[in-house]
């Protein structure tokens, strides 16, 4: 490792206050975007499931009869 | 003596790949007044637009036996004229769009025929609905085309203008022209030229 301590890595000789926020914001954006895409996918799946479900119920009632 | 102008084979309009109505067949011949009937939203307007190539959402085969852009004239439910310009200017421009240069004499003749000559200089937007409809007929006449394609020509017309319009249409087919029009009203006097085609939901 180039830095001798975590403290130093955080400070980066005064440049840490530019480097770390930039990385944090950047990674934050990417994480939030991942989360948004996944939750939208989940919603779409749930909606599809609701479309499929009625026929599902018909099947179970058939087997019950 | 009738000449085939258009052959339509198993045509239906599509919305997202589902046909709107049961596929239709017909041959349009000169001297025919073809009335496209059917419930609201069945696709009469869409069919008309498909026939003249304004829309490509259809299945089946459409074959024009005459050059489409030189033998037909189309008036949709949109006016096709600018409300701020006078009848004269609009007529001149409309004919120019379709490649015909109208002389002053031509314009006077046509506007007199549809009884609009006295309003020739007024902005079209100031005329009444019936007068605007008469101007549409002037647009059709100005082109001297064989086939008229008309979308709902009878809407918002009073009795007299309706009869006058029917008269104009009949004259056109008697002179060897052909008309395809959509309307959910019945045509008052069905004669030998008249044919009706009803679209049925698919």
């Amino acid at each position, binding site marked *: 490792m180039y830095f001798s301590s975590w403290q130093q890595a955080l400070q980066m000789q005064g440049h840490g206050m530019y480097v770390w926020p930039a990385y944090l914001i950047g990674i934050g954006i990417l994480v939030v975007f991942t989360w948004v895409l996944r939750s939208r996918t989940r919603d779409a799946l749930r909606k599809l499931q609701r479309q499929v479900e009625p026929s599902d119920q018909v099947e179970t009632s058939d087997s019950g009869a | 003596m009738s000449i085939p102008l258009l052959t339509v084979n198993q045509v239906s309009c599509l919305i997202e790949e589902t046909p709107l109505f049961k596929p239709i067949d017909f041959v349009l011949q000169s001297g025919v007044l073809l009335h496209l009937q059917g419930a609201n939203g069945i696709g009469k307007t869409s069919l008309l637009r498909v026939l003249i190539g304004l829309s490509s959402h259809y299945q089946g085969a459409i074959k024009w036996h005459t050059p489409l852009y030189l033998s037909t004239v189309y008036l949709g439910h949109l*006016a*096709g*004229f*600018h409300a701020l310009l006078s009848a004269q200017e609009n007529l001149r421009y409309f004919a120019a*769009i*379709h490649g*015909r*240069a109208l002389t002053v004499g031509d314009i006077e003749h046509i506007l007199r025929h549809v009884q609009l000559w006295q309003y020739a200089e007024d902005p079209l937007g100031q005329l009444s609905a019936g007068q605007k409809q008469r101007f549409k007929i002037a647009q059709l006449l100005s082109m001297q085309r064989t086939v008229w394609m008309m979308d709902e020509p009878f809407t918002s017309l009073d009795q007299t203008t309706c009869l006058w319009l029917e008269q104009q249409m009949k004259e056109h087919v008697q002179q060897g022209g052909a008309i395809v029009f959509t309307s959910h009203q019945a045509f008052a006097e069905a004669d030998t030229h008249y044919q009706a085609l009803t679209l049925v939901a698919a």
Partner: protein
Amino acid sequence: MTILMTLRHLFWLALRREGLLVVQKSSQALQPLLFLTLIMALFPLAISPDQKILATIAAGVIWIAVLLASYLASDAFFAEDWQSGVIEQWRYSPYPLAWWVQIKIVAHWMLYGVSITLMAPLLALLLALPWSQVPILMLTLFIGSGIIAYSNALAAALTLRARSAAVLVLLIALPMQIPVVIFAMAAINLQASGESILAPLAFLGGLWLFSAALLPLAIAMALQIMMTA
């Protein structure tokens, strides 16, 4: 059978129609020019009435104001013809749709481009632009407004069916107009410092040719999409 009109005859006829329309709605049509003049009055008030300061920013300010004024009415560029079904008739005409688009844009350019160019000396006077720079300002405005007309028309065509078109037009057209502003201002600045203005003017002319040749096709395609899709 039917003999089609010659393109030249057609062109003059269509041009005449656009001109008549401008006369008919003259109060509306004059708004961009009025807007332009009003903006000019704001700069000395906001920045400084000092002639020296004004002279350095004058050309840029005029150019920006011309751009902004061009957006004013541009979301309505095709709207009336669209709503009245005239564009539908263009599509149904024996001439290609791109040709009608071209005529409409050229007509617009001849009316607005020329009037803005003619207004330039007056605007220059208000902002104390040195007289030696006025001819080159007029030249860049004339060519530039031609290019602007094409990109604005594309934005107008693409937003015909959009819900809130006004800002969208700006968002679409502005990036396309960045090169125009750069080359126009470069020509003015280079001339002021006594250098050769050949390069920026050549780029500007090239850009105009490029737009005039290709954009009507893209605009026609956009209109077609709006009509059929």
